[in-house]
């Protein structure tokens, strides 16, 4: 099984659009889920929606998560805690820009790379 990719944005439009770009550039074989919007549908993120997205692409190969702004990151960390050990140790949040990071991570994942390689490839896009 390949590494799964989860896209978490404050905006459902950004999350879905990013997922569309990944699908077009990387193809259908990559395990991909996205979520965006707070529990009322406004701009924000929902821990439950993030958990559902992580569960939907889960495999022992792990999951790489791409986030946009602060709340998306802390809510993704919270989702990992709720999912709990041992699986949470196989979920990583990439320190990378969400669109470019998602495309790079998905490309690497589609090739069967390990979670560490997928994350490192996405994070090469980040300034040191």
């Amino acid at each position: 099984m390949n590494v799964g990719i989860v896209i978490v944005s404050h905006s459902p439009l950004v999350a879905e659009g990013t997922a569309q770009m990944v699908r077009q550039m990387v193809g259908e074989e990559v395990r991909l889920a996205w979520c965006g919007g707070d529990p009322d549908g406004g701009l924000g993120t929902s821990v439950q929606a993030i958990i559902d997205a992580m569960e939907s692409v889960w495999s022992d190969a792990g999951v790489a998560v791409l986030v946009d702004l602060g709340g998306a990151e802390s809510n993704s960390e919270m989702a990992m805690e709720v999912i709990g050990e041992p699986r949470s140790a196989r979920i990583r949040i990439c320190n990378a820009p969400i669109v470019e990071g998602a495309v790079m991570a998905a490309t690497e994942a589609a090739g069967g790379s390990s979670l560490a390689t997928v994350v490192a490839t996405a994070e090469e896009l980040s300034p040191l």
Partner: protein
Amino acid sequence: MSKTMTRLTSEDMKALIGAMQAAIAENAERLTALDQAIGDGDHGINMKRGFDAIAADADAICDKPTPQALSAAGMKLVMSVGGASGPLFGTLFMTLGKSLPEDFECGAFADAFAKAVDAVAARGKSSAGQKTMLDVLYPVSDALAAGKSVGEVAAVAAEAAEATVPMEAKRGRASFLGERSIGHMDPGSCSCSLLVNTIAAWISAKEHAA
């Protein structure tokens, strides 16, 4: 604060939840206005959604012993808020629940509160002096540890929130503004002061009635 052992009844906890929900609702517009100045303008509405969610489930939450009730309330905030304040305030309540015994006196509460504030700092990867809720929580924690009275703790919280006005933000969305974040109160600090003052007023009223 008294040194006697305290156990909050289910009615006490329901009253506290009601008071916190009302305080957040009354100040939601002010919190959002503060957040529009230096954040993304959703703090008031997010906090209101969180405390409304706790209040909606108050019966089930308050059936539990206080530590478990605090953890359940924290999880409600995590699941319902939708912004960064969900995990931060949620972690505060959840860690308080994890660290507090069912019967507690002031010293035990101060110890549990200190652990909860450290957990918030770890969650937010932040520290004191960065214009965040920690700039209220640390002084409150110190005041509790020093055995200050309820009124003194409330005053410390209010002063600490005011003291965030001249600070430059180093963490969160406000840090993008750099020097332009100076001159506005930090919304998370405002919420913390509001909640501390609401709880303090409830304790004072209860002690007065007793």
